[in-house]
């Protein structure tokens, strides 16, 4: 059923009272804006009562699916449970109502939290110093690449290339371009890992660095990582860790010990902060001691009197990548999460994420083509090529899963797998849920044989049926047109 747009709810002729009545001395002040700057026609915003407004958004919320609704095995996104206590903490008045330019004396709590989160993230990754300024993973990548640029500039190097595996997230090459480098793809080998021979051919004095996700986007730990980082270091390049998949290895292995110089983390993946329907996230960048002088300003420091302060005195800093200090509200939740779980809890989270993924993978491998059979980390990729022979695509399988009450996995990524279905169950799902998902996937595989139409026309049980994306891109209706 269609829900009308908020603009189609009949407007009240006059707005509700929002403001207090103000003394005459204020209300009598004339609005004196030069005529050529003054707005003549008010923007057409809705004008509706509060009960109508609440019903409108309530209806909309019922047409949305979140982690709290059900299983959300979206590969590469780590859709784990978002603890409610962390939400409550992030709304504490003295966290919400603080201004970035208050005196340092008045924001010691915020600075302490940021300082301690930096220390915790250093311990988890093995890095020496973090900036919490980047707002998302891709923003972290860009920040990391700015640091690579600053490093080479200081050395007088003029290097053009950043090497990225062909299985990498799209943000990697896009960030590389924004940082003024060329993205050079290195092929994966027959096991889905970096092809060392090909890498060797690409490495030269033009190589500024290499970006790598480990475990990679296929869900495999690249056991050659020490060789890879050494090869890059040997030509004078830096090695960048895309932390999208850190959820597999917390407490098991540290990126620094794999030879990485720069690391970004996705607090909204690994550290349980909610995705908010697309954001806000947070993408802190951790670096080695050698690179820490390039970090964004300000850094949060602690002096010998136990007082936290913002340090802007960094002449080699790349500058700022965002106004103020970062997505503070997200930082609070990640900090709380780490304190809740501790060392054992983080390690157990990783282990069970990996257990869940392997359990699903082995069950599904009887019904779906599995390009790489080896033990996976926290996620894995199957392919719908067996089903494709019957005219069924990964998209159809994804849409049909909705009828079973599941959010579909990531599809058509990584690009190196045909009809890819990328599944990441996370550690916050139990065997019962996984078994139900397996059952659904088996039934879908059967339907592909026996009743393919039901897949092609899926979903059937959602409030809205399959949407026509081609039409959207052709018609380009991008806003409501007032009559």
């Amino acid at each position, binding site marked *: 059923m269609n829900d009308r747009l908020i603009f189609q709810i009949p407007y009240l002729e006059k707005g*509700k009272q929002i403001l207090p009545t103000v003394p005459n001395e*204020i*209300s009598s*002040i004339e*609005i004196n*804006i030069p005529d050529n700057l003054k*707005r003549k026609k*008010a*923007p057409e*915003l*809705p004008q*509706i009562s*509060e009960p109508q407004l609440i019903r409108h958004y*309530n209806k*909309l919320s019922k*047409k949305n699916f*979140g982690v709290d*609704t059900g299983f959300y095995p979206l590969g590469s996104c780590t859709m784990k449970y978002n603890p409610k206590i962390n939400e409550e903490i992030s709304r504490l008045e*003295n*966290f919400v*109502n*603080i*201004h*970035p*330019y208050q005196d340092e004396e008045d924001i010691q709590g*915020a600075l302490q939290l940021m300082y301690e989160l930096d220390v915790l993230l250093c311990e988890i990754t093995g890095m020496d110093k973090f900036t919490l300024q980047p*707002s*998302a993973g891709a*923003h972290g990548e860009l920040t990391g690449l700015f640091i690579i640029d600053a490093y080479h500039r200081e050395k007088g190097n003029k290097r053009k290339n950043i090497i990225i595996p062909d299985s990498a997230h*799209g943000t990697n*090459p*896009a960030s590389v371009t924004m*940082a003024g480098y060329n993205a050079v793809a290195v092929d994966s080998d027959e096991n889905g890992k970096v092809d060392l021979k090909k890498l060797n051919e690409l490495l030269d004095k033009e190589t500024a660095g290499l970006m790598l996700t480990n475990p990679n986007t296929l869900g495999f730990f690249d056991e050659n990582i*020490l060789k890879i980082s050494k090869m890059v270091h040997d030509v004078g390049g830096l090695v960048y860790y895309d932390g999208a998949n850190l959820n597999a290895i917390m407490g*098991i292995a540290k990126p620094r010990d794999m030879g990485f110089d720069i690391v970004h983390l996705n607090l909204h993946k690994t550290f349980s902060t909610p995705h*908010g329907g*697309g*954001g*806000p*996230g947070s993408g802190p960048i951790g670096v080695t001691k050698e690179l820490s002088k390039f970090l*964004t300003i300000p850094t949060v420091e602690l002096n010998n009197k136990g007082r936290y302060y913002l340090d802007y005195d960094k002449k080699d800093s790349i500058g700022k990548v965002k*106004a*103020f200090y970062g997505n503070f509200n997200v930082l609070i939740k990640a900090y*709380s999460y780490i*304190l*809740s*779980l*501790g060392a054992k809890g983080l390690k157990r*989270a990783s282990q069970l994420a990996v257990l869940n993924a392997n*359990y699903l993978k082995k069950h599904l491998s009887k019904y779906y083509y599995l390009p790489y059979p080896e*033990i996976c980390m926290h996620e894995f990729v199957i392919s719908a090529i067996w089903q494709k022979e019957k005219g069924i695509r990964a998209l159809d399988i*994804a849409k049909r899963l909705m009828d079973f009450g599941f959010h579909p996995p990531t599809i058509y990524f990584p690009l190196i797998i045909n009809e890819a279905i990328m599944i990441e169950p996370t550690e916050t799902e*139990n065997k019962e849920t996984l078994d139900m998902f397996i059952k659904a996937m088996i039934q879908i595989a059967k339907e592909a044989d026996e009743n393919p139409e039901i897949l092609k026309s899926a*979903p059937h049980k*959602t409030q*809205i*049926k*399959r949407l026509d994306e081609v039409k*959207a891109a052709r018609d380009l209706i*991008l806003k409501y047109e007032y009559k």
Partner: protein
Amino acid sequence: MDYTPHSNKEIKEMLSFLGIKFLKDLYNNIPDKIKQKKELKLPEPLSEIELLGRLKFISKKNISTDNRISFLGAGNYDHFIPSVVNYIISKPEFYTAYTPYQSELSQGILQSMFEYQTMMCELTGMDISNISLYDGATSVAEAANMAISINKKKKILISETIHPEYRQVLKTYMKPRKIEVFEIPMKEGITDKGQIKENLIDESSCLIIPQPNFFGNLEPIDEIFPILSGSNTLAIACVNPLSLALLKPPADFGADIVVGDGQILGNPQSFGGPSFGFLTCKKKYLRKTPGRIVGQTVDSAGNIGYVLTLQTREQHIRREKATSNICSNQSLNVLAACVYLSYVGRDGLYEIAELCYRNAHYLFQKLVAIKGINPTFNSKFFNEFVVYIDLDSTELKKILSKKGILGPICLEEWYPSLKKRYLFAVTEKRTKDEMDLLIDTLNKALKVK
């Protein structure tokens, strides 16, 4: 405390199905050389009771602006947030969802983003809107990138009157590609339009002008943007969205792209983040826009629905040729803005803007009547203004904080020539009594001098 739901029995069953004995066997592929030998050195895990206690304790080392009278602004403001906003954005179907790639399960977020796009186009007068960038500062940088990709010129003109941190971000973004950021100097607290010379325009990809500017002053945008006419240099306005209730939309002056920060629209100060950046532009630049865009379509039964559209601009499809690298954005903050704008509505937004304006002008008039306080600029302003106060900043802070007053911001650090010049922001939340307390306090302090 952890959130894994497995019983030991389940774990055993799953391990045995996989043919392994221990959880650690799952990691046999990781070389020993890399594997951690010791457990992470982290504090002992906390129960919910302990965690809440500890975090409350830390939070109390902050002073909430609600326990003070705040005149702090400069890009982050103490505006009123109606309770409906938190109610809606706390709905788990919204805040625990991912980016709406699977549209059939994301109609809630997609429809509200479509509504948001409509409202931002209404406010700014532009044709199209994306569904957010990280913040105001990065929206300026993304708009500049967009201009560069449209006309391929390698220089950016930006007014010195825009937020200093926005300029810093822009420079950080542009440095690796050796794109020159040229700052147009100011005169009397507004952009010195005489400095926007023809040869500069010819070389430059875009001109970025704030409205109102960092000092709260209204820029003569009606005289500045026309200077660009006849060139292919893009006009970019960085605006305060609330001010647009009173001010003509930038589209009317020929703006090509309009950006800004959305914290003002229903998002708390939150120590400066998260807020969101908005970007609206002319339709002809649609395919050059960064970030996500929602389009209307129909489902197989003919019902109207919404999807992410023109994804071929984006990184997950176009990779190194994408218009931007942005993936996660600030959706929940956009939802807050959407609820906020729907709640306050057409009249409400105007009334709030009006009261901000009136409060600021009341305070300004009373302050400049005090001996030792003078206006700094002669410009019209919205809800922020700059005055000279004959007190140094430490002294001023001490005097005001005794009365529970936060702010103003001392400008000297950013603009060395503006010694003893202070920036006040006044929102609809400030009462006459609060402002009178400030006036009275300064009056007394300066009299003693």
